[in-house]
């Protein structure tokens, strides 16, 4: 019959193809599903305040996940972001006591630039595996921070008002409370997305991750790209630390450490390949939101801490596997 010749593609297949073409769609659907589950479990929890809070806690994670996204695009990873963020936060909180804010800021960003530079030279010039290099520098950084802590123990610490305002404050605009942290995050995210998609540096990152040899043969100075990348990543981590101290308001020597592994998970859930060459920042942002909502969900279920961690791990694994399936079905 003639009708058989124009049989439409089955509905399920069409949906799959649609999702594979737009990898962000399944992620957003997952995020919405999680929010709906939350609303069903605790009716009324999803309100303006909750949304503002979720965004506030997702932003530091999203910026750190941005560091991971950019380094992963070149086939690397940056595990020193937690230490760098902690260092800049701690130095800021202790130096602000008897220094000018601008000088305290510069002092706080100094270790970030330094660690980024060492990471970049180690990975780019000496060709050390990024995992080892960044683990090593984070070990050194933690040690330095502990020594530094001894010298400032007498002077105490305080959180600058501006950072507290940026980290926790909200500004009501047309009846909706916008977290002030968005003031920092929106331009930053736009800059990262723009850099990755539209500038030569972004293209170089994808190129290096996709085929390093070919990139090098085309005349790209590999070590310059990598050094610039790791310094950028470290500076972003330092800024995150300043934001995070405004949110948590309690300087400690392991402030941002718990964010490191989730930041890797957020980038992976967001569809960035850990082997390089594929991915983007928009997916990562949604990945960070998903992880933050998931944490709230698991907290609300009032499970013991152990069961919560188990579920967190399993869900990260499941989402990544499912996502890879969908995207690779082309």
């Amino acid at each position, binding site marked *: 019959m003639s009708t058989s010749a124009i049989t439409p593609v089955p509905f399920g297949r069409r949906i799959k193809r649609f999702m594979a073409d737009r990898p962000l769609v399944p992620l957003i659907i997952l995020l919405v599903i999680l929010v709906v589950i939350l609303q069903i479990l605790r009716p009324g929890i999803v309100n303006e305040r909750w949304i503002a809070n979720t965004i506030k806690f997702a932003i530091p994670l999203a910026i750190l996940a941005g560091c991971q996204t950019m380094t992963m695009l070149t086939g690397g*990873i940056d595990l020193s972001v937690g230490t760098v963020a902690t260092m800049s936060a701690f130095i800021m909180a202790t130096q602000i006591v008897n220094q000018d804010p601008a000088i305290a800021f510069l002092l706080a960003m100094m270790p970030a630039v330094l660690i980024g530079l*060492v990471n970049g030279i*180690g990975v780019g010039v*000496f*060709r*050390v*595996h990024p*995992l*080892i*290099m960044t*683990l*090593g*520098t984070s*070990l*050194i950084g*933690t*040690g*330095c921070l*502990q*020594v530094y802590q*001894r010298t400032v123990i007498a002077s105490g610490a305080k959180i600058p008002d501006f950072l507290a305002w940026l980290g926790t404050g909200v500004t009501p605009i047309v009846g909706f409370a916008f977290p002030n942290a968005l003031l920092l995050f929106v331009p930053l995210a736009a800059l990262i997305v723009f850099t990755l998609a539209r500038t030569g540096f972004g293209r170089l990152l994808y190129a290096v991750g996709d085929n390093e040899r070919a990139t090098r043969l085309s005349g790209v100075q590999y070590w310059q790209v990598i050094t610039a990348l790791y310094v950028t990543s470290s500076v972003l981590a330092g800024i995150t630390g300043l934001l995070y101290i405004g949110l948590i308001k309690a300087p400690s020597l392991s402030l941002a450490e718990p964010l490191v*592994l989730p930041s*890797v*998970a957020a980038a*992976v859930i967001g569809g960035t*390949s*850990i*082997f390089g060459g594929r991915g983007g920042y928009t997916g990562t942002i949604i990945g960070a939101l998903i992880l933050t909502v998931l944490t709230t969900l698991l907290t609300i279920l009032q499970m*013991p*801490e*152990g*069961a*919560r*961690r*188990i*579920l*967190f*791990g*399993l869900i*990260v*694994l499941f989402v*990544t*596997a499912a996502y*890879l399936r969908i995207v690779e079905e082309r």
Partner: protein
Amino acid sequence: MSHFLRRQGWVVGLFALLIVLFIATRIIQPGYGSGDFGSLARAVLPYAFAVAAQTVVVIAGGIDLSVAAMMALTSVTAASMMAGASEEYALFVVPFVLAMGFVLGALNGLLIVVTRVPDIVVTLAMLFVLQGAALLVLDAPGGGAAEWLKALISGTVPIPGLPDAVDAWLPKALLVLIVCLCVIWIPLRRSRLGLSIYAIGSSELAAFRSGVPVKRTRIIAYALSGLFAAFGGLALTMSTGIGAPIPGPYLLASVAAVVLGGVALGGGKGGLLGPIVAVFVLRLVRTDLTLLAIDPNVTAIIEGLIMVAVVMFGAFITMRGRQ
């Protein structure tokens, strides 16, 4: 001889470094004797097993971020099972915990093979899962260990016919380490399976085309890693007498020692001896720095610097060799 040196150059260099460190220790602390060596061996034990666990997987071209969490889980399981139980019951606990490590390790490998998610991500997720499981078993440090297990790693081995002065330099912990590693590693290295592990680490595609069952080999490599991690967990329980659900610093230390031991992170190169010697080197450096009365925090900085410097040096040498 030159062939041997070229192949084993890195390990020989490490041994030389270790001897230099021992001499340095004797100079710093003239009283450093067999007793101190025994406590060094006991301290090294859990680290050495963690490193062995990491080495197998790295040779197979992967990485296992869940090593420390696996050790925590096996340690608390052993400690909570042995708490208040009879001495004989521990005879059942030990094989049970080892089997648990083996199965959980195999699960790691299975997930990597089935889901095709990168190994870093799978073992990262498993890190959370195993940590959570450890917290469910024991939510605070506790439990107990059988006396004979604790005795297994304390003291020295008396060998008939040797003077006591020599005996004293052979702590039981060192012997336990050597026996456990050799019993598993030497037959493995000589078997077809061991060759397959090196093959998939060297080039997965080439191994597949030569008829190596890549997936099965990968799962077994992770299972062996789990087994070694379970040994490490038991060693923790044996040396402390309790189990702690929070993982120690073993992940970072294991990766550092693997690299320092001359195992390429890309896979397919290196052996077990290098990383084990590297663990001794790293621990002895820490002992020396403590003996020199250096602030423990500065010690952490120096350790990190050594690690980074050695890795950079190693990478530099390979780069020169390739050109």
